[in-house]
């Protein structure tokens, strides 16, 4: 294996916005993320690029979340929020440290008049969900327990089973169409490993 790239963490993620004031109010004033950097520039580069503002909020732990505001443009269709789980798959989940903080966050969101979409207990996290002014899904989550070596090993087994099924389907094997296949493939490998152990 080659040496991995020496990543030190997330610097920023970025998405476009056509709602400058609302985005600043939401991220700076509601979520409490300080505005720490703003680029204002003429469009440049090889594409017919609009003039823009590119601004960054401190997201904690050395990370920022950034937006591009393209001056004088309308949002292209492919950026428009839609009610579809595949659109919502692109989202940012913000960490709080306790369940009390999660509930406090929920109360503040609702007090701000923002509709709460869900509160969901997952395997190791509990989360609330709501939209930012751009229609981007925002999650706030509390992790119930730390990940352990068991989680790491289990994640590898799950994803390796998925990769094997994907590879088989790509080369003319069985269609990869249901999670049951992953669970069965994972069990086959796991039982072999148990016999050897």
């Amino acid at each position, binding site marked *: 294996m080659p040496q991995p790239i020496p990543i030190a963490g997330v610097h920023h993620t970025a998405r476009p916005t056509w709602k400058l004031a609302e985005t600043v109010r939401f991220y700076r004033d509601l979520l409490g993320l300080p505005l720490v950097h703003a680029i204002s520039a003429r469009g440049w580069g090889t594409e017919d690029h609009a003039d823009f503002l590119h601004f960054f909020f401190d997201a904690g732990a050395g990370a920022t979340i950034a937006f591009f505001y393209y001056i004088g443009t309308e949002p292209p269709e492919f950026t428009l929020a839609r009610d579809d789980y595949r659109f919502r798959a692109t989202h940012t989940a913000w960490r709080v440290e306790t369940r009390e903080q999660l509930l406090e966050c929920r109360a503040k969101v609702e007090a701000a008049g923002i509709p709460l979409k869900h509160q969901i207990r997952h*395997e*190791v996290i509990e989360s609330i969900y709501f939209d930012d002014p751009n229609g981007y899904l925002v999650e706030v989550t509390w992790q119930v327990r730390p990940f*352990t070596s*068991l989680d790491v090993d289990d994640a590898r087994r799950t994803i390796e089973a998925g990769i094997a099924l994907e590879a088989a389907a790509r080369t003319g094997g069985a269609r990869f169409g249901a999670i049951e296949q992953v*669970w*069965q493939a*994972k*069990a086959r490998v796991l*039982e072999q490993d*148990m016999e050897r152990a």
Partner: protein
Amino acid sequence: MPKILVLDVPEFRPLVEEARARTGYTVTGPRLGYWRIEAPGVLEFRRKALGFKPAVWHGALTGGLVGRIERFDNEEMRIVDGSAP
């Protein structure tokens, strides 16, 4: 005999406890970090009896499955012998 493998972590522990309390269900392990639950003919669980919220319920077989899902809806799962069609 249908069988499920359950990762030995707190969020899935109700499966193990429920199976242990049942006549005819065998629970062994944990081995390599997984409990093994099996029963002759059929394995059945109900979400509410396990106290599982929907998100965890729908991933409850993530540890592994030896058998075929005959029924798995929002409230009940039924696993029988066999492989996926």
